[in-house]
């Protein structure tokens, strides 16, 4: 929308006069009077494409239909948004899209969540009249995380735009022309050989199933059914804030207890909380940070929890690898502890332990297969990663009546978390949790301040100066890689001396991850209100807890005492830390 002081334009839409600021599009103007013009390629956070033609409207005296998403209003414009002829034209457009699309809705992953399917129904496509050739492309599943199915693509270009504009990766482009067009990485290479950082935002914005996560649900079902395996599951912070959406709960309803019960019903032997490992990450990372502050560098310390961001770092900014925290992600720490500490304590052969992680993230699937995260006996510490979407499906598949479940509790000894661990799922959460712990470590006094609203970077980017005792820390927080680049460029060019920077690959942080539930019908992917509701759930959980500082977590204290030794010590370093290296192909910043 144009700013308030803009010139007002008067036009007529469906016979009614209205005034809107100059620069408003017909689609936006119609929305102000309660008219929702059908659309497909349009996404309010992305640039205009005008490629699907579904939003056509009739403008008097123009002679051709115009696209409402891209056409700006003009003085005296007379728009008709609906008529038998427009309805027919829109229906024909969607029918033609369907004609070049596989007829496999019933067995498609996005059945019920597909914008093309919804639109076809809404516009009244009830039969397929056009019989023609259909494009054929093989399904491309080389990547550990993201599957590309070009046959399902309708060339709306949302994935191309989200990858370039929100994520700054520019991995996808349109290749070829006409009927042979397809969206693919450079050279139409596989996703594995591309600059893809595996964040999965292409999956979130795709209106169909042209991009999907690589599923692990069947492997997990098989592991649970295998009597020789002891199957342990861990749940990331943001799952509890979003899983309810799959079962009709209002977005932002915390569902921790029901989630634990549902996992137990699915047959997992132990249900552990990734948030405990988030607390552990904070203790390790705060120690690493203070050590670097004392040693004079390398600073700024860059967080390392988000595997999409780490992949971006290795491909696009490898010179900053020494700045990245060597801490494994909470998932990595938890899985390592399950196959060492827990297996030892429970007297189970770690080779018989199968670890499943439920994550809001598709890049975690890739992280779990990085060679650094394998056990000495050659198995991955994390055997399988499920997205929130996959878990919701599994629960439904087992006929578990989620809304009516009792609240369960996480299992000992890896089931206690502080509020600091819970907020890892939101942008600024790692920063806030670190500040809660670091301020005590620096001053040696109990921290009075627990809430750091200024680092909750809901709009995507924050640069703040925060006093901890005598020390002023210059911190940065960003989510969505395009915004991270702004801070990273300042670091590379030495324009500003930051001490600590939190980067999350996905908009809003993990709550907006590439593995989170598709939004309800009528709500767009990445909707800020939806993300805010999920964030609220995590802050509510945090606020209600007695323990809100990671280093006060009794389970973490016990871990160090019984098993790990000192934070940052030799054993902690061996088990909880990792390393990164420059990777090819090198991306273009």
């Amino acid at each position: 929308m144009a700013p308030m002081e803009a010139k007002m334009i008067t036009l007529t839409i469906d016979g009614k006069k209205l005034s809107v600021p100059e620069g408003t599009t017909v689609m936006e103007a119609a929305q102000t009077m309660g008219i929702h013009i059908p659309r497909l390629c349009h996404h309010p956070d992305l640039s205009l494409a005008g490629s699907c033609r579904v939003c056509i409207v009739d403008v008097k005296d123009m002679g051709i239909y115009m696209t409402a998403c891209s056409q700006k209003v003009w003085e005296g414009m007379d728009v008709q948004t609906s008529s038998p002829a427009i309805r027919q034209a829109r229906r024909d457009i969607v029918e033609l899209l369907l004609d070049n699309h596989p007829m496999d809705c019933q067995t498609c992953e996005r059945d019920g969540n597909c914008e093309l399917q919804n639109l076809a129904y809404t516009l009244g496509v009830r039969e397929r009249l056009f019989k023609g050739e259909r494009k054929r492309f093989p399904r491309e599943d080389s990547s550990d995380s993201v599957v590309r199915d070009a046959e399902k693509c309708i060339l709306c270009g949302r994935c191309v735009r989200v990858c370039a504009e929100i994520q700054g990766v520019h991995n996808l482009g349109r290749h070829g022309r006409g009927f042979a067009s397809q969206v693919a990485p450079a050279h139409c290479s596989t996703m594995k050989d591309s600059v893809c950082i595996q964040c999965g935002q292409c999956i979130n914005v795709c209106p169909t199933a042209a991009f999907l996560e690589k599923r692990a649900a069947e492997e997990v079902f098989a592991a649970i059914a295998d009597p020789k395996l002891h199957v342990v599951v861990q749940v990331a912070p943001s799952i509890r804030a979003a899983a309810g959406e799959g079962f009709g709960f209002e977005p932002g309803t915390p569902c921790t207890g029901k989630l634990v019960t549902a996992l137990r019903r699915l047959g997992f032997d132990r249900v552990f909380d990734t948030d405990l490992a988030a607390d552990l990450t904070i203790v390790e990372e705060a120690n690493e940070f203070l050590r670097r502050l004392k040693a004079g560098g390398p600073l700024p310390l860059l967080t390392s929890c988000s595997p999409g961001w780490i992949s971006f770092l290795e491909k696009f900014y490898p010179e900053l690898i020494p700045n990245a925290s060597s801490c494994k992600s909470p998932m990595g720490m938890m899985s390592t502890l399950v196959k060492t500490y827990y297996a030892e304590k429970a007297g189970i052969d770690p080779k018989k332990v199968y670890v499943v992680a439920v994550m809001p993230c598709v890049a975690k699937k890739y992280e779990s297969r990085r060679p650094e995260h394998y056990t000495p006996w050659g198995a991955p510490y994390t055997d399988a990663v499920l997205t929130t979407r996959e878990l919701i499906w599994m629960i439904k598949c087992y006929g578990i009546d989620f809304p009516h479940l009792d609240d369960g509790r996480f299992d000992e000894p890896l089931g206690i978390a502080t509020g600091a661990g819970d907020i890892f799922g939101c942008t600024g959460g790692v920063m806030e949790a670190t500040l809660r712990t670091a301020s005590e470590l620096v001053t040696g006094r109990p921290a009075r301040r627990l809430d750091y609203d200024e680092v909750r970077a809901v709009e995507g980017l924050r640069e703040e100066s925060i006093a901890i005792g005598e020390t002023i820390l210059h911190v940065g927080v960003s989510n969505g890689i395009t915004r991270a680049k702004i801070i990273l460029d300042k670091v590379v060019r030495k324009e500003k001396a930051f001490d600590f920077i939190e980067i999350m690959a996905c908009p809003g942080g993990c709550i907006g991850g590439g593995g989170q539930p598709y939004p309800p019908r009528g709500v767009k992917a990445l909707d800020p209100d939806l993300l805010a509701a999920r964030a609220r759930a995590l802050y509510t959980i945090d606020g209600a807890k007695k323990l809100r500082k990671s280093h006060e977590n009794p389970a973490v204290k016990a871990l160090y005492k019984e098993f790990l030794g000192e934070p940052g010590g030799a054993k902690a370093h061996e088990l909880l830390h990792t390393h990164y290296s420059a990777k090819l192909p090198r991306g273009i910043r």
Partner: protein
Amino acid sequence: MSHCACHNTDNREQVEAASRAALSEDILRAIEEARRDPEPGGRLISILHKVQGHFGYLGKEQMDAVAQLLQVPAAEVTGVATFYHFFRLKPGGRYVINICLGTACYVKGGAEVAEKFKEELGIDFGETSKDGMFTLECARCVGTCGLAPVIMINENVHAKVKPDEVPALLARYRDKARQEQA
């Protein structure tokens, strides 16, 4: 500790050196010139023309090098390269035959000339003969309508070509290749 402040993890120099090695001097000069533009990507097409002019086609290595040195995403480079008919992604034959099928040439029998070439060489447009000698392409007006139907074989223009002249024309170029090899 796994990380040390002095440890160089950057691969920019290697990537840049490999990119420079993949291109010729005049292409590198054109890229350097483009880099001074506010929008270096605006010169992408003209640079790809230069690459094809030098190498005969756009190879993966060359396109990646252009992306790195021009700092334009590789997906954009290959998107452009696959969009335009003119760009060739595989090596062409020793002689590239461009048959004009613009309006004037078409009216004057360009299509029949094209058919004769296809028949003689046993290939379609965009393909290369098995011996690697000829690649067949069609052009949309080469700007010499007075000479219609016109064909170009590499840099040479052949005017007012008739279908029955085609076998002799091909034989001439085969001879030429033999002589050059000898």
